[in-house]
């Protein structure tokens, strides 16, 4: 039986502005002041020289670039507000900036919960293959990040092995991570070219994109920024993500946190647009807060997270740059009450944040450190629920059902009405939320949603076979990995 391949996007229609127009401008102006007076550190002489030539104030001694406001405003205007993240299967292309919110896997979890033992351990390349196969079969997951860090290969070749696992295990759009140098980026781009069918084909249909992270506060590693430029020069979108921790690597106050993160992200975007004008990029403010006792990330985050998300979405709208928003995130150790509450609150935040083009990041718990397979299908169910909520308000004559109400009259029931049968399948039906009676639940051994999720994912992992790559494409990818391994090894020792 062939199943129609499709992506389930969130189509937002609610928008809550937590900042007034005036407050939004205050944040923007404060950001411009930071970029002009404080600037950011970018440890790449090549990039700093190009920024200086374009009008930035550059101090090579301290690797500092300060951006005049006009340069910032002009560069942001060059960033496209819409583009396509293509997929190996064109039916799974993602139209960014068209009102769709696409869910991605989480990225590079340091550990995975073993499906058989239930214990956490370092992830392998095969884990990434299995997780990607799983995501390939889940309609809600649109964009494949490497959801676990591949730790059974040397760190300097992690990026190419991850990209290989992703490209070979799904026909969905691939987001590359761990490209920490232009050498990494070139190898990953080369792999994407092989799969897409050459440089031109890849430019026309970018089946792979990437993003780079700032080091908060206000820094970018030079190699990382050079990798971003490498992707952009190959015609591949490259976003910027900030993972500042309020109180530690960003101010404690919400407004100050926003300004600092906004400055980091705009610095990345301005740099990219200056070096590669018109490059497709995105704005990814991932909020985190410090645990005041331990100094680690606050795993019990609450209201600050949602407020930050909504305020940051207003900034992305102001700049007309596609946004990548954090849709999932929990400090829980498994998909328990805490995870359910934090996920639901965060996703509801996304639902009322207006249009969010990319929604990260499903699959992990414990502050994004630990991936578990069942999280993917459970998170997808919550995502589907929220999507449904956003889609379901309709008030046509047919929906108002006046004739049906009249036909049934007082004291009757609507069960046998044709109208009921015509519309009942519009109602949301869960896969994993428990809807059995207490008796049935006890008879089944008191299962919880995670048990049903594990059953489902085992079924997918047993049955689902993603469209494989051609054998010669596969051979070429392995060759690129091989060459990259040898060159990186040489570079390391040379």
């Amino acid at each position, binding site marked *: 039986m062939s199943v129609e391949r499709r992506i389930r996007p969130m189509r937002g229609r609610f928008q809550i502005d937590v900042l007034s127009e005036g407050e939004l401008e205050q944040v923007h102006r404060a950001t411009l002041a930071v970029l002009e007076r404080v600037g950011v550190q970018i440890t790449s002489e090549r990039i700093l020289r190009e920024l200086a030539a374009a009008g930035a104030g550059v101090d090579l001694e301290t690797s500092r670039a300060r951006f005049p406001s006009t340069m910032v405003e002009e560069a942001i205007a060059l960033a496209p507000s819409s583009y396509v993240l293509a997929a190996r299967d064109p039916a799974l292309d993602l139209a960014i900036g068209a009102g769709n919110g696409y869910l991605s896997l989480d990225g590079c979890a340091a550990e995975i919960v073993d499906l058989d033992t239930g214990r956490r351990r370092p992830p392998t390349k095969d884990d990434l293959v299995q997780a990607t196969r799983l995501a390939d079969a889940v309609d809600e997951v649109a964009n494949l990040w490497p959801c676990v860090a591949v730790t059974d290969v040397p760190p300097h070749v992690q990026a190419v092995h991850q990209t290989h696992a992703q490209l070979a295990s799904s026909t969905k759009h691939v987001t590359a991570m761990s490209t920490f140098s232009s050498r990494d980026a070139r190898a990953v781009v080369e792999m994407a070219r092989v799969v897409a069918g050459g440089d031109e084909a890849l430019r026309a249909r970018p089946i792979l994109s990437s993003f780079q992270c700032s080091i908060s506060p206000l820094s970018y590693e030079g190699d990382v920024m050079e990798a971003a430029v490498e992707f952009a020069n190959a015609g591949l979108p490259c976003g910027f993500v900030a993972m500042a921790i309020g109180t530690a690597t960003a101010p404690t106050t919400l407004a100050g946190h926003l300004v600092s993160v906004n400055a980091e992200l705009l610095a990345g975007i301005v740099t990219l647009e200056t070096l590669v004008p018109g490059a497709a990029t995105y704005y990814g403010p991932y909020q985190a807060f410090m645990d005041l006792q331990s100094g680690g990330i606050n795993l019990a985050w609450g209201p600050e997270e949602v407020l930050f998300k909504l305020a940051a979405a207003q900034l992305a709208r102001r700049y007309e740059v596609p946004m990548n928003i954090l849709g999932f995130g929990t400090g829980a150790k498994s998909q328990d009450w805490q995870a359910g509450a934090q996920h639901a609150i965060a996703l509801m935040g996304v639902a009322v944040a207006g249009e969010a083009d990319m929604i990260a990041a499903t699959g992990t718990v414990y502050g994004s450190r630990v991936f578990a397979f069942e999280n993917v299908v459970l998170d997808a169910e919550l995502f589907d629920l929220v999507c449904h909520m956003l889609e379901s308000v309709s008030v046509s004559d047919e929906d108002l059902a006046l004739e049906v109400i009249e036909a049934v009259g007082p004291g009757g*029931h*609507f*069960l*046998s*009405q*044709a109208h*009921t*049968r015509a519309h*009942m*399948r519009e109602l949301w039906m869960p896969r994993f939320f428990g809807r059995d*009676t*207490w*008796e*049935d639940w006890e008879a089944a051994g008191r299962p919880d949603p995670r048990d049903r999720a594990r059953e489902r994912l085992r079924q997918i992992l047993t049955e689902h076979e993603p469209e494989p790559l051609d054998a010669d494409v596969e051979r070429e990818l392995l060759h690129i990995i091989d060459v990259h391994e040898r060159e990186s090894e040489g570079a390391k020792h040379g």
Partner: protein
Amino acid sequence: MDEKIAALREAFYALDDQAAVRTTTELIEGGADPQVVLQTGLAEAMLEIGRRWNAGDMFLPEVVAAADIFQRCNSIVEPALIAAGGKTLGHRVVMATVKGDLHDLGKNMVGAMLKTVGFEVHDLGKDVPTDRIIEAVKEVEPTIVGLSSLLTTTVPEQRNVIRALEENGLRRSVKVMVGGAPVTQEWAEEIGADGFAPNAPEAVELALRLAGSERPPGR
């Protein structure tokens, strides 16, 4: 004729009431054995619909719609069945929403669906005093008494009805099934009922079990 009966069942699965009524009429007017039409057409279709409901492939409003179609078709088959001296209906059921409770949707659904598998249903309505239930049991001599209540305040009436059956020496001659939102298996056991079902389709299975038949009675 087999093809036509298959078409009748298909009309049920498609919930096409017009096609079902038309096919039933054609079968009966064409001289088909009404017993065969009832058993292999109408009842078999309802059993299959019950199976599909159980598997999650059909929803309750569809089952209720099918029950409505069953009743319309059965009203065509029944006169022919009686005229032919055939066996019409099997076990009788007396059902009621107990005293003090005006909620009868659940009981009505169970009643409608019991009819579809061949039970003769005597529905006493809602807010029914215990005396009336006892009278009806004496008069109808049912196999099963079904008691429904939605409210926690009226659920104790179910126990009162069972006691009254005992006091009138009727308890051994009937099976009592109870239902309603606050009712549980534990409650059913506590008050000495013979069975409980959490929803209408399972109530039908329970009734068939209590009547000592996994298949529609009258076969």
